[in-house]
């Protein structure tokens, strides 16, 4: 997919470009907020990755103006300040995701893919991955026609995984999207939640759907 990267730090931009290119994206770079804004407005990108602190125009302003102009390309804001108020400000301006520096490359790649993948997810009422089905209205989950009994939080965890099926989701993404937690727990809390969910959806079936992606996170895939 085509990614617009707006980043003023040359080293950072080159590293990110290389990583995104290695993940088979076509990357174009803008050096400041104004250039980024005009390139984004001219369209043709699948995802925009935007630094928060930019010369000439702040990342938040760029997003706000793009949204006002009707540009709906998914935007990920990168920020050295990973604080609640800045995150809320970025999301309110119209950004789709917010990632605090420092972040791992895998984290960034996972989020860029998730953004593109999930750009028109909200209209769905049914999710399906292989023989696993989720009814978002009845709030039921079935595998191979057999109803599974999930706790509310497990339901939300599975829903997020199913919406991003085929994509790697990181622990951080799960924390932020399923629990709305914006800190790093020091223990393997997420792994335990995943293994409990796995025991419910995979244990009695030959084919495993919930995979661990070593060093990155998890992927639900048929």
């Amino acid at each position, binding site marked *: 997919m085509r990614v617009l990267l707006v980043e003023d730090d040359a080293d950072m931009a080159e590293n990110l470009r290389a990583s995104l290119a290695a993940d088979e994206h076509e990357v174009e770079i803008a050096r400041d907020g104004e250039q980024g804004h005009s390139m984004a407005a001219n369209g043709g990108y699948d995802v925009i990755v935007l630094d928060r602190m930019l010369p000439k125009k702040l990342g938040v302003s760029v997003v706000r103006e793009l949204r006002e102009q009707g540009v709906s390309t998914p935007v990920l804001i990168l920020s050295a300040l990973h604080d609640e108020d800045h995150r809320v400000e970025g999301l309110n301006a119209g950004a789709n995701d917010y990632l605090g520096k420092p972040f791992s490359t895998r984290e960034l790649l996972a989020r860029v893919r998730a953004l593109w993948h999930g750009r028109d997810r909200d209209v769905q009422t049914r999710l399906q991955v292989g023989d696993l089905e989720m009814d978002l209205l009845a709030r039921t989950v079935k595998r191979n026609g057999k109803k599974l009994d999930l706790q509310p*939080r497990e339901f939300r965890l599975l829903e997020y995984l199913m919406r991003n099926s085929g994509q790697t989701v990181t622990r951080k993404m799960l924390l932020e999207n399923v629990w709305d937690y*914006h800190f790093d727990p020091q223990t393997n809390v997420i792994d335990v939640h995943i293994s409990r969910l796995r025991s419910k959806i995979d244990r009695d079936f030959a084919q495993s759907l919930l995979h661990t992606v070593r060093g990155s996170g998890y992927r639900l895939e048929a």
Partner: protein
Amino acid sequence: MRPSLALLRTTTFRLALAQAGVVLLFVVALLVYVYFATIGQLVADSDILADQEYAALERAYAEGGIRRLNQEVVERSASQGPLLYVLAEANGAVITGDFPQLPALPGEAVQRVDFSFETTNSEGSPQRSRARGQVGRLLNGPILLVARDLGDSAVITGRITRVLWTVAILGVILSVASGLTASWFASRRVEALANTARDVMGGDLKRRAPVRGEGDEFDELAEAINAMLDRLERLMIVSRTAGDAIAHDLRSPLTRFRQKLEAALEAPEDSRNDREALRKALEEADNLLDMFAAVLKLARVESNPNWRFERIDASEVLQELVEFYEPAAEEQGRTLRGEVAPGLVVNGEPGLFTQAVSNLVENALKYTPEGGHIDLSAVRRADGRIEIAVLDDGPGIPPADRDRVLERFVRLESARSSPGAGLGLSLVAAVARLHKGGLHLRDGLSNGEGKGLGAALVLPAAA
């Protein structure tokens, strides 16, 4: 000491000058009063006396003519008294009286006269004296003068006046002198305080302003300055030790980081080993970055920018945290139980509130041995505040160390081996302060040997 001219600019000296002016004014007022109370009164009295005498002699003349008048004047002049008389012919030739010549000539009507004359004092030496009275022409021409000798009274008044002037000048001199002395003393004390400030600025943080123990305003000021310096010094030490601690805590992971990279570089080429070394190096780099993030977060909480507070359903947040951590605790062989009263609401920053409680839970998970218990309870206390307590049956913290562990980077020896930067509890304490609450450490759950640790986050309930 500064040049003495500087003394003239001090506030104390200016006050002393004003005081000297007041003394001068007072003396002048006193002089005016003394003049009217003595000479003024004397003059008024002598005027009445002379008038009465003149009138009496006028009557004597009317009754007995010039002979009778002459006789009266001779008699009265001979008697001891302050009054002086002169009777003269119409042409001014003296007939009889106390002066050989008329000391003052009469006008058309009877008039008041004021004159000085030569006299002898009790020792026989000549002296000038003042007199005041009436002179006038009688019917058919003779001239009559009656006056009162102001003599001694005038002398005494003159002396009083001189004494008062002397007092005035002395008073002014004393005022200025005392002003100079007072301002010298004051400047010396102020100078001592200024020297203290300069020394502290120069880097001598141990320096304190001298306190004389007299309990005066300078002592009060010195004590206030010393209290301020104590606090400054403590803060300096805290930030210095924080800096030392950062450097110290960063050294170990940085050293391991370097060792891993070096080992990978020197080992024979083997991509599997290389990748493992790189993975470990990355882990160390992440630890370092986490540590920085924690320091920055703590700094942001403590410097108190405008955090957006909102109503937080604490009961719900806490229940969710228990559910979030419970599976991991169980997996690690620990029991996490939550006992959260419903309907607890606090005013705060949701992210910080959640992280603070999560830090307490993680702290308990970290230090409680396998098989241990952790209880999270939340209640509304009798005083209306909300208390969120995390109790464990781990080794606990000795009471003497409890205040210390809330300071940043402080890690007890027993905790050195486990990961962490010693910022977890500091952040909770800072978040508590930001929310106008506090973090209190006490005994936790008894475990037979130790007493465990109880960490209570006490916050005001939302209105």
